């Protein structure tokens, strides 16, 4: 089967998944007690009946559930994700405003984690049982085990409070209004702490995975053959061992890339990173259903796309893998 047809079929599947996500989450989020009207009335510290009723009417929460569902689904089918209850702005605008920040942070973290993890894993696998191997394994264990929010807080303490070399939070310097290269440098500086906090955890798991895989692959016959035909250790490691060890790592990274999209809530919160994670958290507490559903939909689409990329990446890393 050719690649284009494969991709077309997968995209169709993405649409089906999205429909399922809409239906399931529409009912799921209504299982949580309370609604946006009571939350907003409660926030003001001075609620009355008229306020709650007017909010329910505004949000359409006073209508029967099937009507609410029909209105929502037909709007989504037209590409309209609705208006946020709390912000009273189009949901899509709100999400698209935040999404690049999350993708930037995730992309950075994933790249650092993959590069660092594979390098460290390969290093450790070179001489299993050596001091270097033990060091990498211990470090990986540590970063794998430490909770991310704690790591983040410690990073702020050390690099922002004690050493005062990195900004503790935010995405750029407030009110500096940098442009061009200065802005890129500014954002990059702000990204180091949250990015590394996020990356270290995944880097640890990649390092462990790479190490195990490489040790396993090195014992196989084709590696012996490669050595026998006179290739240097370096060539063997890179062309034969690493490339074969990469397949499970791609699988793992593909899975984690999807987790990353929705899973940065903690780190985003600790570092006040204006991404989708913080937005989702706020939407849940405010019972802002349209916003939350919108985030679900966008996330579902992204995860499906990530999985597609992962599958394509397989076929590139290993020509034996067929897309079907």
């Amino acid at each position, binding site marked *: 089967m050719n690649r284009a047809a494969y991709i077309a079929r997968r995209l169709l599947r993405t649409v089906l998944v999205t429909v399922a996500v809409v239906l399931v989450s529409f009912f799921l989020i209504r299982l949580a*007690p*309370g*609604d946006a009207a*009571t*939350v907003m*009335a*409660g*926030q*003001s*510290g*001075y*609620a*009355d*009946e*008229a*306020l*709650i009723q007017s909010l329910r009417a*505004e949000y359409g929460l006073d209508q029967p559930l099937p009507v609410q569902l029909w209105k929502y689904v037909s709007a989504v089918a037209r590409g309209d994700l609705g208006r946020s209850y*709390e*912000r*009273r*702005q189009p949901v899509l605008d*709100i999400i698209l*405003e*935040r999404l690049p920040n999350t993708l930037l942070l995730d992309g950075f973290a994933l*790249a*650092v984690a993959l*590069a*660092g993890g594979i*390098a460290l894993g390969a290093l450790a696998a070179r001489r299993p049982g050596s001091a270097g191997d033990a060091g990498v394994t211990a470090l990986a264990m540590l970063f794998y085990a430490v909770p991310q929010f704690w790591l983040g807080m410690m990073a*702020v303490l050390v690099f*922002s*409070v004690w050493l*005062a*070399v*990195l*900004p*503790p*939070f*935010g995405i*750029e*310097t*407030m*009110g*500096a209004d940098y442009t061009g290269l200065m802005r890129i*440098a*500014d954002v*990059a*500086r702000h990204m*180091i702490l949250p990015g590394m906090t996020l990356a270290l955890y995944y880097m640890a798991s990649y390092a462990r995975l790479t190490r195990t895989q490489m040790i396993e692959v090195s014992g196989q016959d084709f590696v012996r053959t490669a050595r026998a035909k006179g290739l240097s250790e370096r060539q063997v490691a890179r062309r034969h061992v690493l490339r074969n060890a990469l397949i499970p790592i791609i699988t793992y990274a593909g899975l984690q890339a999807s987790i990353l999209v929705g899973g940065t809530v903690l780190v985003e*919160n*600790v570092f*006040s990173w*204006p991404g989708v994670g*913080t*937005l989702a958290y*706020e939407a849940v*507490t*405010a*019972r802002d259903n349209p916003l939350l559903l919108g985030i679900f939909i966008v996330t579902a689409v992204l995860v499906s796309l990530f999985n597609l990329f992962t599958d394509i990446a397989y076929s590139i890393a290993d020509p034996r893998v067929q897309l079907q």
Partner: protein
Amino acid sequence: MTLHRRGVLGGMALAPFLPGHAAAARGNVLNAMMPAEPGTLCYPLLNTRLVQEICGNIQESLLLLDWDFKPRPNLAKSFTVTPDGLVYTFHLEPDVRWHDGAPFTARDVVFSCDKMLRQLNPRSRNAFNNCESIRALDALTVQFRLKQPFNAFLLSLMASNAPIMPAHIYEGTDFRTNPHNVRPIGTGPFKFARWERGQYIRLTRNKDYWRAGYPKIDDVYFRVCPTPEQRMVALETGAVDIALADDIDTVVSKRLRANPNIVASTRGYEGVGEIQVFEMNQRRWPFSDRRFRQAFMHALDRDFIVKAINFGQGKVATGPIPSSAPYYDPKVLTRYPYDPARARALLDEMGLKKRRGGVRHRFGFLMIPDGGGVQTRGAQYARQAAAEVGLDIELQSSDWATFAQRTGNWDFDMDNNSYGEYGDPAIGTSRFFVSANIRKGVPQSNIQGYRNRQVDALFASASTAIDPKAAQADYSRLQQILTRDVAMLWIFERDPMLYYNKRVHDLVSGPNGPTDGFGRTWLAT
């Protein structure tokens, strides 16, 4: 390939040495924080403390309060009241302009009070529903005619009750979706400048402000700082200058008070007069029995709550009216000192005997969500203290929506909360005790179901009394009845702490504190 990525990382490592890493705008700029972004900056639409603190710089009220809770002029330069307490006439400050240049007139006041606020804001409704008519006598004179005297009326015109909104922007539009809700227009010392979503809100000096010589500051930033640790670090590193009431948990108050760069002050929240309380669902036995509520009060060492759980901040509450507010009368109160023996005796007397396992009664305590803060710690302490007298409390966690839903629908045994008195019992206190305000589905109403005809009548006569002495007599009697009944379990007066960098001066100038904006604030260089 791996080598190449390392190269990129190496480049990143140089970035910290680029200029400007202080991460805060300095100079003549005030940096504040917000735990979460507000949904809107339309003051009447979302009257939360955060919106009050941001919009208090943009919107203004007719009057301000001085430290003795007496009104002083603001947008209204003077006012008169007829002796029968029915007609209030306000003379407006001339030459005031909205931020877009349009003149401010009586039309704006009538529109705000009669239409917009009354339609959107429950607290304003409470005041303006007393009005028979609100009309403009000329471009700079507004007359409020009341149906019956309401002696808290002037207080109802303070900032957070009655911000004056621009008629030319809102009249005839859908208030809830007006585009100016996210870029508000007011008459205040600061103009809205920018809202960088998820990051900060920036206000900038109103160069044409009507009060000559003000404001003293060029820009005000409110930056999003979602976690308590972040807010602490921001304050300690000087990245922000001020922490408002709910920004910092009392756990760290000692550490902050020891910091020579930070000033700690409890002044500025007297106007809210917040009391932390436990509430009981008095429709259910044994909470319906006054002796049970009295016993529970005796079982609590509230002094310990203030000293140990709130780290010495605040003071033990004695009744429904805060000790710093008008009408407080310490002479008539029934007091409930810590006395577990007395608590046990009361429980015995009402027949609540110990059963198997030494437990007299088992019930739930719905905790208000405050992220493990003083409210949660207080509930945990209450559980221990109650166990001492044979009561077994099951603590129930919740989020805001759940909490509002369950309390509003009377689906709880006991809960905790914190309520503002807002300077007058008729504004902030009566709502929890009058039977007319028992309304299912509405949180922060009389959710306990407390009913007392005498109390209903006294609240009605107190707020309509023209003679202050008569009002005082009614409120004294009310404090006597309510404390005798333990109509609510008043735990402690919060006295929230305002922390600010020592370069900040004149941060507050009255009991409404930060709600009145930073118009007079200046920064030492």
